[in-house]
């Protein structure tokens, strides 16, 4: 029912939908986040603390399953180097009830921004690279759920 992965390989969104949807759930909400090529970005590198990332995603998934009536949950985060257009994160939440599927999906994607042990480094076309600073806006969105 709960599928949580942290992987350096590409996320196969269609295959994950197939696997998740096999249950024929009443309502399914999803979120796909992709690397944006803004400002000439050529690579996004996500560094992580493997044990803490896995634990963080697992805790988030179980928090969502405790809070909403979910029939299935998929939470996959990519790590390592990726290019613009590639999928960073996939959230799929299903429930008999649409409001629960939508809320769980929004909760997970907001919390991912603050709760998961990841650091982002952006590299640009001119060769410059920088580590991304935490954003206050993300914290505000995540705290809506407390």
């Amino acid at each position, binding site marked *: 029912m709960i599928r949580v992965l942290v992987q350096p390989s590409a996320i196969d969104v269609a295959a994950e939908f197939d696997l998740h949807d096999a249950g024929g759930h009443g309502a399914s909400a999803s979120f796909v986040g992709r690397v944006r090529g803004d400002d000439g970005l050529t690579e996004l590198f996500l560094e992580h*603390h493997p*044990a803490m990332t896995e634990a963080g995603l697992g805790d988030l998934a179980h928090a969502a399953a405790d809070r909403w009536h979910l029939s299935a949950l998929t939470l996959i985060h990519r790590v390592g180097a990726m290019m613009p257009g590639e999928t960073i994160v996939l959230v799929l939440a299903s429930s008999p009830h649409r409001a629960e599927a939508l809320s769980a999906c929004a909760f997970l994607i907001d919390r991912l921004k603050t709760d*998961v*042990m990841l*650091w982002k480094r952006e590299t640009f076309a001119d060769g410059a690279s920088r580590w991304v600073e*935490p954003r206050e806006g993300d914290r505000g969105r995540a705290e809506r759920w407390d």
Partner: protein
Amino acid sequence: MVLNVAYFSWVRERMGVGDETLDIPESVGDIGTLVAWLAARDERGASAFAEPHRIRAAIDGVMMGPDAPLSGAREVALFPPVTGG
């Protein structure tokens, strides 16, 4: 005391390694003093830990504050605030 220390993000880059095994003097009993000791130890430490307020830490995968004791720790991780998913 022998301690495994892991670094992430720009802390890792400035330290030049992802993790290392350190022999820590007995006077270094908590995370705050460990960070100060690393900053004083060599140039890479000075560069990575010049601003201790920008450093976060975890002991064996659990986030800890600067007062957390190192005794019993298998791994101490030192890193900047996370930027999330």
